[in-house]
């Protein structure tokens, strides 16, 4: 079924029955209309993909990249809404294509390898412990998202970058202002960006004088050693990029993970009985999450065939990773949460040359939070019925507004 110009385009986001539910349309679309026409909140139109194989093939094709303002691609948010990153323009304000992208990725990638991330695990556990202490101190019911989910990833990124611990809460504020288009005005978002840029420039200058054993310090050492390192601008954008890419995504995922596992408490009990399932449980939660924004965008610089259909150059494509994660061609019983599922080739971190560079870090953070909660608060439960959880109306990364819990 190809979209004809007269078709009433579907509007994103698609409606769902509950805060954790998948839209009923995905299954239909995968079956009958794998290349659908949708209207984004900006009013712009895009092609919407829902099949696993189509999305994996498109994301693995190095010719296609995330759109920037210069491409004239379909925008997500209406004009004027949101901070500098609401349309993904500055979001990963880094070399985003071609050789420059590859070089940037390999420069940063070496500080986010599985080994490096594993070395950060004890520090992450200490952070998780202290945040759970705060939750307990504040009394019942508590908001797990605000108290644990939101601060944890930003603290971890501060440690990674080498920003002092006492500045962590400023980072949290800036990061929120860049991304939270419902809570802050464009003006506030811009101000935060300026403050953040000033802070980072000072931090980079201090590190140039005395490089420590952290990401920024090491990048600086590399550049003085082989003359191949990153400029001040790129260092600044790297700090910004890591915060933007790694904070809101992980913060929301922590809240959604705990909600999904407590929504049916037999899941939680299974993990209490066998904590060795934490690793596969985290990946299954990542697969199962149906509230993950619209998906990732690609701008087609030239014609390409997708699912047997020719998409003309100039098209903006939105790939619904969550719809792909429920594709019955790839996952047995996709609508069931199976905490032992392995292998679990879900696409929540994307695929191909732009696949999430922080995925080892994100997985480790989620595992550490879950282990810590199981150990410290085995009696944890939702303080409200699941249906009363509310989705964030943000446009980039789906999440829940609050996650009220008792223990």
């Amino acid at each position: 079924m190809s979209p004809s110009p007269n078709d009433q385009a579907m509007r994103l986001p698609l409606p769902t029955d509950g805060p954790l539910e998948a839209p009923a349309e995905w299954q239909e679309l995968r079956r009958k209309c794998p290349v659908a026409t949708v209207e984004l909140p900006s009013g712009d139109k895009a092609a919407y993909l829902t099949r696993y194989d189509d999305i994996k093939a498109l994301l693995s094709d190095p010719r296609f990249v995330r759109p920037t303002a210069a491409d004239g691609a379909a925008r997500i948010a209406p004009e004027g809404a949101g901070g500098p990153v609401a349309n993904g323009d500055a979001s990963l304000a880094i070399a985003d294509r071609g050789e420059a992208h590859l070089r940037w990725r390999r420069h940063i990638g070496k500080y986010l390898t599985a080994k490096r991330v594993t070395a950060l695990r004890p520090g992450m556990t200490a952070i998780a412990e202290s945040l759970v202490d705060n939750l307990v101190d504040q009394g019942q019911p508590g908001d797990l998202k605000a108290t644990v989910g939101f601060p944890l990833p930003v603290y971890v990124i501060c440690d990674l970058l080498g920003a002092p611990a006492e500045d962590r809460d400023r980072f949290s504020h800036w990061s929120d202002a860049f991304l939270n288009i419902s809570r802050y005005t464009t003006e506030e978002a811009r101000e935060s960006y300026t403050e953040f840029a000033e802070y980072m420039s000072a931090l980079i200058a201090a590190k140039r004088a005395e490089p420590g054993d952290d990401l920024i310090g090491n990048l600086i050492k590399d550049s003085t050693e082989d003359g191949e390192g990153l400029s001040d601008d790129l260092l600044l954008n790297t700090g910004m990029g890591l915060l933007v890419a790694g904070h809101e995504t992980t913060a929301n995922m922590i809240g959604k993970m705990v909600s999904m596992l407590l929504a049916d408490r037999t899941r939680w009990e299974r993990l209490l009985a066998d904590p060795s399932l934490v690793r596969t449980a985290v990946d299954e939660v990542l697969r199962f999450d149906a509230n993950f924004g619209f998906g990732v965008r690609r701008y087609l610089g030239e014609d390409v065939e997708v699912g047997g259909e020719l998409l003309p150059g100039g098209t903006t494509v939105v790939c619904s990773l969550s719809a792909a994660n429920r594709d019955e061609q790839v996952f047995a019983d996709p609508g069931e949460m199976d905490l032992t599922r392995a292998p679990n080739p879900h696409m929540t971190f994307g695929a191909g040359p732009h696949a999430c560079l922080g995925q080892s870090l994100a997985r480790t953070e989620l595992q550490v939070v879950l282990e810590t909660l199981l150990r410290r608060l085995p009696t944890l439960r939702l303080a409200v019925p699941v249906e009363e959880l509310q989705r964030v109306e943000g446009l980039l990364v789906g999440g829940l507004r609050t996650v009220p819990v008792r223990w």
Partner: protein
Amino acid sequence: MKVSVDEAKCCGAGQCVLLAPEVFDQRDDDGIVVLLAPEPAPDQHSNVREAAAVCPASAITLHEAP
């Protein structure tokens, strides 16, 4: 079982190392995959299969003995 990796495709996400650290590593200078054991011991086979299945860049190829 024989394993091969495609360094050009690898995006350095490290899933293989998290799953099978005795078989895969990442280079210190750019995070790209290094194959430690092209013919892994039988007790590693299931981890290696999992790594190949979840590699986001489809950079790991397995040749299973018939």
